[in-house]
């Protein structure tokens, strides 16, 4: 259910502007990988290339390879739709479909993937996904109410439930807690720890403690100067990055001495 991601010499562009330069890394299955770095260094841009969401922006393109269990996502004849079914994504701002009920939100992806499903199987799947996202107890009595009526933290967990309902191999999360209060944030961090046993999780965060708490490995992105492309400066075990980084820039950033 979870797969290894192998990124090789990835360059990422918005039209003529190169946003990220020459990233190579290996993300192990059933682990949590965190990306940190200053604003604008290309963390969101990079994570969106892992499920080919980057290219939905007009003019955006990628050079290099991203291999998931050996298969190049950007190879000839690979359908981005299939990639996105394997690699789920949770966005910075919770985005449940406003016109759908909670239950339909959870099942939205499944309904795309497998056209028909009995009512009972759908109910079971919705319950499993909502339990998986630690949301079941809060919403089990109002599954038919609109998803937009939930609190921000609940909406974000609903989006996680929607992502895991399709049973992807990998789950990408771009600052999933940045719009949330500390309690909801903790709920989602706990959830990430549980998801690790089944999925490969990649998360972008601005919160260094969060990266330290949830991740096994951490990547530090940085810009050499404004207008320059972002780069992966250091990628190592989280322990090592936070206690004994090998790069000066990393140390400056995590200790807050960042100019």
């Amino acid at each position: 259910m979870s797969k290894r991601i192998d990124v090789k010499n990835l360059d990422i562009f918005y039209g003529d502007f190169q946003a990220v330069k020459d990233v190579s890394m290996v993300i192990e299955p059933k682990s949590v990988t965190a990306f940190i770095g200053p604003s604008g260094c290309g963390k969101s841009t990079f994570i969106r290339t892992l499920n080919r969401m980057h290219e939905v922006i007009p003019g955006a393109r990628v050079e290099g390879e991203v291999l998931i269990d050996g298969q190049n996502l950007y190879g000839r004849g690979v359908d981005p739709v299939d990639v996105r079914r394997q690699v789920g994504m949770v966005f910075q701002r919770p985005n449940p479909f406003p016109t759908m009920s909670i239950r339909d939100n959870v099942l939205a992806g499944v309904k795309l993937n497998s056209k028909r499903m009995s009512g009972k199987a759908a109910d079971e799947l919705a319950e499993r996904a909502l339990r998986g996202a630690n949301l079941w107890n809060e919403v089990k009595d109002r599954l038919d109410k609109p998803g937009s009526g939930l609190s921000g933290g609940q909406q974000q967990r609903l989006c996680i439930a929607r992502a895991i309902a399709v049973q992807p191999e990998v789950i990408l999360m771009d600052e999933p807690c940045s719009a949330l209060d500390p309690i909801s944030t903790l709920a989602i961090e706990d959830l990430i720890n549980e998801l690790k046993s089944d999925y490969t999780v990649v998360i972008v965060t601005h919160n260094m403690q969060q990266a330290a708490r949830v991740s096994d490995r951490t990547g530090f992105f940085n810009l050499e100067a404004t207008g320059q492309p972002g780069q992966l400066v250091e990628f190592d075990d989280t322990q090592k990055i936070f206690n004994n980084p090998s790069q000066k820039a990393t140390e400056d950033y995590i200790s807050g001495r960042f100019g």
Partner: protein
Amino acid sequence: MTAPPDEPRGDHDPTATSGSVATRPPDSPGTTRPKARATRRPGDVVFSGLSLASGLIILLILVLVAVFLIQQGWPAFTADSEEISGGEGFFGYIWPLVAGTVVASIIAMVVATPIAVGIALFVSHYAPRRIGVVIGFVVDLLAAVPSVVFGMWGLQTFAPQFVPLFGWLEDTLSFLPFFEDGSATGRTLMTASLVLAVMILPIITSVSREVFLQTPRLHEEAALALGATKWEMIRTAVIPFGTPGVIGGVMLGLGRALGETMAVTLILSPGAFTWNIIGSGNNTIPAEIALNFPEASGLRLAELIAAGLVLFVITLIVNLFARWIVAKRSEFSGAN
């Protein structure tokens, strides 16, 4: 808006300065209110006054129109049956016109809506930006064609073209009551309805295009990230988001079709109501009024004004219905 001095809650002396507020007991409920009032900016006052005034004017015009229609049309409701045209009372006179109006408008709506939504989706989500802009512009130009031009075109070009089509419909679908005797001139309710469809196409298209373009990126990306194809993304994110707006556009179009006069008057060769929409016959309320109003007097005039009242009521009902549909869905609109 200012509280009178004896108002129970506003227990302050109107001449007191704001500094005196501080000397009052802190739990006095009235102390905070004058302060809030003092922050009203002149711009706010002017603007709220203006919008209130324009709202009242619209309401006043509406009431005046209704009063005119009821007052002038009243004799038609109270007159003896034999005195009304057709000799079967006002109801007997009006229902074929209502039926003709409603049938023509509904056909126009049913034909125009899918085409309009299709164009709007193409322009907003499929076409390259430049082509989309051009198509949008062309559709908007269609809205600038005067209805009398549509009427002439419908009569001269459209109607004769339809004669063979009507023949075919008659041959293949004659088991339906709608397609019996094909008209030889093509001046039928079907022709008028199709011209109406062309006329209401731009408004439905441009309203739909606007709402489709406003679909939040966030929702589109949510669908794409779940592995939706483009069409599935449109179905899960764009169409549900746009539906209330599309309904609004369709109702605007329907309102226009219901009230459209010139095109129908020119195209239709009026007659009694018949379900056979490809044969001659049928008439609509606006065409009936436009054809007969200049010569009408006395009770005939009252009849026509009463017919206008009926049209007014139908349009009102259509609008209320549209609002009801939109409101019914608003819980799911994402506005909360």
